[in-house]
């Protein structure tokens, strides 16, 4: 079992998201994250899907997606150079002045913005890879008593020239 990524072009219509997500629940596929938004063509949406699966199941997932009438194209992002980012807001609550300084240091190291601040709290706005976001959350959790996290799920696009993810 490992995480794999699929980009999916679908018709931008009522019920398509339900149909795609229903496939994963109905066939007991392990959906990790799914994001969706319209593309440059507003009749088409693009989904970025992360699933945890073995090789055989992953092949089957791609085939099942492919045969849906509403699915226009399935792109397997495994081994393809891509750019991938996930939006994450992390609020750190109930912190002292010293701890606030620590938040700023962490933000600097991770290259994320402190985008809002209160007397005993700070809000980080992060646009990192999913893994990097996981690491940031783990760090914040280890250092501070209360954090509040909201994540957007990753979006990915094929690289033009680089091979960095």
């Amino acid at each position, binding site marked *: 079992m490992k995480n794999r990524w699929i980009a999916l072009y679908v018709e931008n219509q009522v019920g398509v998201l339900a149909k795609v997500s229903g496939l994963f629940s109905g066939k007991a596929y392990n959906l990790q994250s799914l994001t969706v938004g319209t593309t440059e063509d507003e009749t088409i949406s693009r989904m970025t899907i992360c699933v945890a699966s073995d090789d055989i199941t992953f092949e089957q997932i791609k085939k099942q997606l492919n045969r*849906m009438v509403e699915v226009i194209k399935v792109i397997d992002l495994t081994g393809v150079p891509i750019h991938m980012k996930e939006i994450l807001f992390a609020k750190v609550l109930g912190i002292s002045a010293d701890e606030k300084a620590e938040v700023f240091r962490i933000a600097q190291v991770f290259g994320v913005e402190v985008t809002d601040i209160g007397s005993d709290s700070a809000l980080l706005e992060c646009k990192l890879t999913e893994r990097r976001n996981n690491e940031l959350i783990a760090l914040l959790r280890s250092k501070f008593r209360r954090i509040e996290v909201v994540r957007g799920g990753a979006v990915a696009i094929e690289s033009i020239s680089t091979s960095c993810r």
Partner: protein
Amino acid sequence: MDITGRKLFVKALQEEGVDTIFGYPGGTVTDLFDELYKQDGINVVLPRHEQGLIHEAEGYARSTGKTGVCLVTSGPGATNIITGLADAHYDSIPLVCFTGQVPLSLIGNDAFQEVDIVGMTRSITKYGVTVQRREDLGRIIKMAFHIAATGRPGPVLIDLPKNIQTTAGPAEYPSSVQIRGYKPNENVHVGQLKKAYKLLRTAKRPLILAGGGIHIARANDLLLKFVEKTRIPVVTTVMGNGAIPTGNSLYVGNSGMHGRYAANIAVSECDVLFSIGTRFNDRITGDLNEFAPKAKIVHIDMDTASISRNVVVDVPVVSDAKLALEKLLEWAESKDTEAWLNQIAAWEQTNPLAMRRDHGMTPQMIFEHVNRTFGEAIYVTDVGQHQMWACQYLELDSWHQLITSGGLGTMGFGLPAAIGASLGNPGKEVVCFCGDGGMQMNIQEMATAVTQGTPVIVCVFNNYYLGMVRQMQQLFYGKRYEATCLRRRRTCPATCKGPNPACPPYTPDFVALAESYGAYGIRVEREEEIQAALDEARTHKDAPTIIEFMISSDEIVLPMVKGGNPNSEMILK
């Protein structure tokens, strides 16, 4: 000039060449029925229940190859067709089902008879959509007929809000439609197929496994030619039964849970399994680790998602069965398979398919009489023991001769499907086999058969039990016959060892019931009465006949492979 949605609906059906529509009216579809009243090219069949309705459409579609068309109202009308949608989905039957819907302005309000039928059926339809704009109606109907019948066929659902039906809009019905996400495979990869054929040519113990895809593609004649040329033996799935004539010397039998002994052993011993149009359902494979353990497996299927899903195959070929066989026939050459055929014949001799003949009437005897009596009939089964016996003992010799619910295994399928088959094939004899349990699941369709004048012959195998489950209780559950005896009443003792003279009478009386519907009823208790009953039933051309065969509840379907066990481990006695 603009026309209303309801007018376009009828125009679309006419342009699609629809001659029969199975419809049950209700509040949200009255406009459509009113429009159907005004035309005369399309026969509107009124069933007695929507579940019966959709199975009738399935029977019509399965027997004619045409798309079955259903029209039901919103809410309960729509939810009542769900079982049939799943049935058609599993067996790849082309249907276009129109469901009424409350006006768009009321959707989401929990309005009277409002259900989200598209949401409910998403996983059991090939495509489903609620029409949101009147101007899309023509394109959507065109899409539905196209999607239902092409590629791997299946049911399509169109949810039609009431206001769309009455709103004026474009009168055009498109002659074709482009769907960017739907491109069914129309070719065969010759390289892959060559690889597959090479395997077959060099095999010592080759075996063809034919599934329902052969029937769907109408590839029976081609398969027969291929088989006769190459002398390769054939086994079938339940849905593939009759892929080549069952009387052909190269036909071994059905394989799988209730397959023929020789067929299952042949699958276990073959060195190349050349499968066409099957999805390797668990009823066919048994224990996957032990399935065809010595074989390289070729899999030809229309549906890419069916390939290497259950069974990992060595040579996958995405293709329609007919296209593939046409190509294969170009290469086919005679092959010496005598030793292998003799081996299979020897297995057959050790455990031939047969029931006892020493006391009383058996299902085998009934099927033997049926085989002698009907030449060109369409056979339809319900689901259960009789269905497996039908697959074992019926002689089939062309593609349209056996209609059965193979994938979903829907009790209550038989009678309505037989009516649909009869409506699609006027003048042709249609014989339905049914258990006493399944017969009561859509018994109300007897009224449909009478009012439509479809002279189906319904052979009810009455053993007083839900026999297939009883059989499992007998073999695997210590004969604890919980909830399978259909004679059981509240006055019966708490535990029961089986039939005895104190058992209450069976209800209903099928003969009296048939007569109350205005149909014919005959009861057969002994073998000597079988032929006369069949002969009499055939003379009834105006209404259906129920022949109730009183058979022993001890009769079980053998061979049997316990679910999850290897196919080579069959219970034979």
